[in-house]
């Protein structure tokens, strides 16, 4: 850069008449859309961490049996309402690796409950890759290996045990299988219905639009929970846990679509006037093709972001239904089913650890909220 006497600035680089004027100065702005979105999302710390956490949580689901020391319905009759146990590393100043102290139940005849005394003289090291109760890895491969388990004669209840002596930690990790997937199935149902109805209403307009719009308004003005309750009360009581699980997820999704449909509809109303839509129609594309190939990809990412934000509602919905005894039922393990045990004040006061399943619920719901916010903010990479 040189400064001419009359105050103008001039680039010193030799002038090249053959330079390609359409080339972009900053090649990084020419990256594909997903890369731009990723770059922006990466700066959204909370969203990124939440996303990673959820990814880990969902990837751990198939390994729930391996990661937990007990199976979900395994009862230790000698250890009812056992308080949480710490896993320790140092015994009397010496490092001896992860171990637990054995405990023993003592009947407290004054309050009629079990209290537990810890024997702090005998550290018992945890075992790793040990063989215990049989379970099915990935739901199909029968195996007996657990990542860690209690040594003979001791227990490892990280989060305590419940009224039947079942390990709360193991039940939480098994419960994640149902509690986390319920939202995914529900959102799929809601996605299909929402995009379907929204697209039809927005693209065709006229009386179809009118009908769909009224349906959306009516459904949105009704309180969800009573309807969820009514619908799940209609599930026959003789159905197996798996079918109940699927029907409950579908019920959760059935009432969620109006919000999505509304967003899709308003987008379609404006997009269908665009030239490229007219062009596609002139070339003989059928409505289905125009919708799928030309219109939907425009805002699919926004839909995904908003879907992320409605998964938490479903997870909370499942919890509420199961908590009230109308959702998933006993042999099935979900976080809501577990909280059903913590229903009264007495159990929260005396055995506060039975309410621990609320922690994963809160964390997962928060994570979905942060992830959704992050995605929504970064989906428009061209705005600052």
């Amino acid at each position: 850069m040189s400064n001419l006497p009359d105050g103008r600035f001039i680039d010193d680089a030799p002038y090249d008449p053959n330079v390609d004027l359409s080339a972009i100065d900053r090649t990084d702005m020419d990256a594909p859309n997903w890369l731009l979105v990723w770059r922006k999302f990466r700066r959204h710390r909370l969203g990124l961490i939440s996303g990673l956490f959820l990814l880990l949580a969902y990837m751990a689901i198939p390994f729930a049996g391996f990661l937990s020391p007990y199976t979900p319905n395994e009862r230790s009759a000698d250890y009812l309402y056992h308080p949480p146990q710490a896993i320790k590393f140092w015994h009397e100043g010496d490092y001896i690796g992860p171990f637990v102290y054995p405990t023993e139940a003592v009947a407290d005849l004054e309050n009629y409950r079990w209290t537990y005394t810890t024997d702090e003289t005998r550290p018992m090291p945890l075992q790793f890759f040990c063989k215990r109760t049989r379970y099915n890895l990935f739901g199909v491969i029968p195996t007996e290996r657990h990542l860690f388990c209690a040594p003979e004669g001791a227990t490892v209840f990280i989060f305590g045990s419940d009224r039947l002596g079942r390990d709360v930690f193991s039940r939480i990790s098994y419960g994640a299988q149902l509690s986390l997937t319920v939202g995914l199935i529900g959102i799929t149902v809601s996605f299909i219905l929402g995009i379907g109805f929204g697209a039809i209403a927005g693209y065709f307009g006229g009386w179809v639009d009118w009908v769909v719009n009224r349906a959306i308004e009516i459904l949105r003005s009704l309180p969800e929970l009573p309807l969820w309750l009514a619908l799940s009360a209609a599930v026959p009581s003789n159905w197996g846990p798996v079918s109940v699980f699927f029907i409950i997820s579908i019920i959760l999704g059935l009432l969620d679509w109006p919000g999505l449909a509304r967003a899709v509809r308003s987008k379609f109303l404006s997009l269908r006037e665009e030239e490229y839509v007219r062009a596609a129609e002139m070339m003989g594309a059928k409505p289905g093709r125009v919708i799928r190939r030309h219109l939907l990809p425009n805002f699919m990412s926004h839909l995904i972001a908003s879907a992320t934000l409605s998964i938490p509602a479903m997870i909370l919905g499942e919890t509420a239904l199961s908590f009230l005894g109308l959702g998933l039922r006993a042999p099935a393990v979900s976080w809501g089913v577990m909280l059903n045990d913590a229903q009264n004040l007495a159990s929260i006061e005396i055995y506060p650890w039975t309410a621990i399943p609320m922690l994963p619920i809160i964390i997962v719901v928060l994570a979905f909220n942060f992830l959704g916010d992050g995605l929504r903010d970064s989906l428009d990479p061209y705005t600052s």
Partner: protein
Amino acid sequence: MMFIRYAVWRFLTMLLTLAVVSVLVFIIINLPPGDYLSNQIAELRATGQAEGVAKAEFLRKEYALDRPLWQQYLIWVGMIPGPQGFSGLIQGDFGWSFEFDAPVADIVGDALWLTVLVNLAAVLFVYLVALPLGVLAAWKSATWVDYTTAFVGYLGLATPNFLLALILFYYGHKYLGLPIGGLMSPEFEGEPMSLAKVQSILIHLIVPTFVIGTSGAAGMMQRLRANMLDELSKPYVETGKAKGLSSTRLLTKYPLRMAFNPFVADIGNLLPAMVSGSVLVSVVLGLQTIGPALLTALKSQDQFLAAFVLMFVALLTLIGTMISDLLLVLLDPRIRYGAREG
């Protein structure tokens, strides 16, 4: 004049919606196979109590449960004469509860008013909390005020209502001496209204209101904050500042009024959530609203009771939405009456 016409039109749409909702409710209630009485008859047959069967058969006839479904619906609503002539929702007859062996109207009775009361209190709470906090968070954005309210708000959104209820009840009782369970002290139940009773109800309302309102308040706070931030970055705010308006005056005079519209319009979204929450929380905390009645009715397939409660809950939200629409028209002259054209 225009407003009255709009109000009438809006009222008629609400009635129409209510009619559609009644069909929906009736279908949902009748989804499970059989009904309360046919289940009872089967049970009585199995245990060999013949005289009970006769009574149940009689009741089945009496309440037209042996007719085809569409006729049952019309009788329930009161459009065609049933066994006792015209007696349906339109005539003010809410039907018979088999589970409690009493008219539905007697069972819900007081619960209706208490439900309205609990929901009103919750909505009021939402507005009282969300308005100042949302404005404050936007005004002091990116300071500790903003972060703290955001954090509390997120927690409020993420904690399941019923757990919050249990926890608050426990600690409220332990440290503040708040009463546990119910909406009034037992000695006031069935008593006529008195100052002491009102006082008792108010004290009992504290925790439920807080619990039901928290998630709604959190959501509304976030939306208000976003709206305010949009407004605050507009040039007229800068002009106001440059001309030396004090910050409170500047804030309340212009941006707040602009951000207020969505706030009122939000009742439509807020109310269904509130009512949902109140049903759940009532069951957990044993409040005498219609929540527990709904749950028992649904579990035992007591169809008239369940249907009535669902209808009432729907009516509550529909009326709320209508009021918010009317308020919006009064508040904002830019909103046009009637349907949009085009």
